[in-house]
């Protein structure tokens, strides 16, 4: 229910965006509250890394604050914000490629980290074994997503998790709509092959046609 209310609030935040454009800090703060989770999750699925997702979200909203006065139409706020997020992701990716540094928890996820995720998962009252299985599957699928090429990953995340239309994705990435659809097609095709390579079948995920 809360999710629905949040989505409704996000969809009907034109007046908020208009006030934010005029420099109202309260309106900007409310926009951050509304959109933070979405941008964080976009960054998390792009990097599969909490710290980088936090970094991307923070930079995205700082850039939003600096540039929102230049936003021409309030209806274009969503693709505009994702454009900033994508640029931040690409910037972080360039930095990571330049540094060649990999956090230690990429090799050995710490117990404390797992514990934190368990506490934060909000599923403490569910069957622990089932939740653990779901978490493992989620991480495995997230790893599959990470193996996609950067361009296809952007499109897949925007389409599957952020619910953008192909027209909005094209606008966000400054590409044609057909290019966005093609990237999606090849992204799903590549993902299917990665799933096969990792032996993730329809039975594994309980898929029913």
């Amino acid at each position, binding site marked *: 229910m809360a999710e629905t209310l949040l989505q409704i609030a996000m969809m009907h935040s034109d007046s908020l965006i208009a006030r934010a454009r005029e*420099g109202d*800090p309260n309106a*900007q*703060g409310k926009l*951050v*509250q509304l959109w*933070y*989770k979405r941008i*964080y*999750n976009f960054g*998390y*699925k792009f990097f599969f890394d*909490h710290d980088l*997702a936090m970094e991307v979200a*923070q930079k995205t*909203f700082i850039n939003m*604050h600096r540039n929102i006065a230049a936003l021409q139409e309030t209806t274009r706020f969503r693709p505009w914000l994702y454009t900033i997020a994508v640029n931040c992701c690409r910037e972080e990716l360039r930095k990571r490629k330049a540094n060649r540094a990999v956090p230690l928890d990429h090799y050995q996820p710490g117990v404390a980290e797992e514990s934190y995720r368990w506490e*934060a*998962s*909000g599923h403490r009252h569910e069957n622990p074994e089932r939740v653990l299985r*779901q*978490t493992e*599957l*989620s991480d495995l*699928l*997230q790893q*599959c*997503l990470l193996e996609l090429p950067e361009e296809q990953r952007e499109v*897949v995340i925007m*389409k*599957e*998790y952020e619910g953008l*239309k*192909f027209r909005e994705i094209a606008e966000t990435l400054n590409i044609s*709509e*057909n290019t966005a*659809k*093609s990237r*999606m*097609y*090849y992204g*799903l*095709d590549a*993902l*299917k092959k990665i*799933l096969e390579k990792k032996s*993730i079948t*329809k039975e594994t*995920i309980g*898929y029913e*046609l």
Partner: protein
Amino acid sequence: MNYKPDEATLMAYLYGELDAPEMEKVRVYLEHHPAQAAALKDAQFARSALQHVREQEVIAPPIIFDQPQRPSRWLNGTLKTVLGIAASFVIMLVAAKLLGPDIKVADGELRISFGGPVSQDLPKVAPLSRDEVQTLIKQSLAANNETLQTGWRAEQEKLQSLVRNTAKWNDEKMTKLLASTGQASTDQIEGFVATLQKENLKMMQDYLSLTTTDQKKYMEGLLVDFSKYLQEQRNQDLNALSARLANLEKNNNQFREETGQILATILTASGPTTKKQVNY
């Protein structure tokens, strides 16, 4: 049926972003093309797998945006330029009021000055005639020549004086040098002779001491050699004597054998009545 949807159309179909007639066309196409339909099912499977990636719960950190500072009208760039020009004009007016401006436009020349015109009146001189000019030039040349000659004479005297002084100084230096050279040679000769004497004396002493030693060594060597000579001579004499003795003994033995043979021959010739034993 020649219709074949491209990848983009298939994706739009998968996500329901096609209009109804287009959707129907794709659906019919997939019914007749099971391979394409299977590929689309695979894509649908990948999509459904992606739905198992869990959404991360996160709370937005408190982000406080500063109230943006509205640009002051006084800081507006255009206004600043206009105000600057106005201020410059006011300063010019004040300066003009205090100093008194003088602006002239004449013969294509704009002249702005302050503080009134400066008097530039020059004394008027009557023009000179040709002869006067030539006279002035001659006078100037004569004065110039005289000055040059005076200067040349002074320079010449200075040079002569300098040459004389230098020659005198050189003579004195040469005399001193010769005197010092003569004195130095006498002392050197005396020193040289004394050194020679010392060296000769030392050489004689060394020679004598060396010859004495050598003579001694020679005599010792000679005595040793003489004793060796005597010993050698003695050995040779002894050898000669022993050889002669051996020879004599050898001759003696031969003579005895010959005598024995002669006696045996005589005895054989004389008969067996007389038998004489000869013993030596």
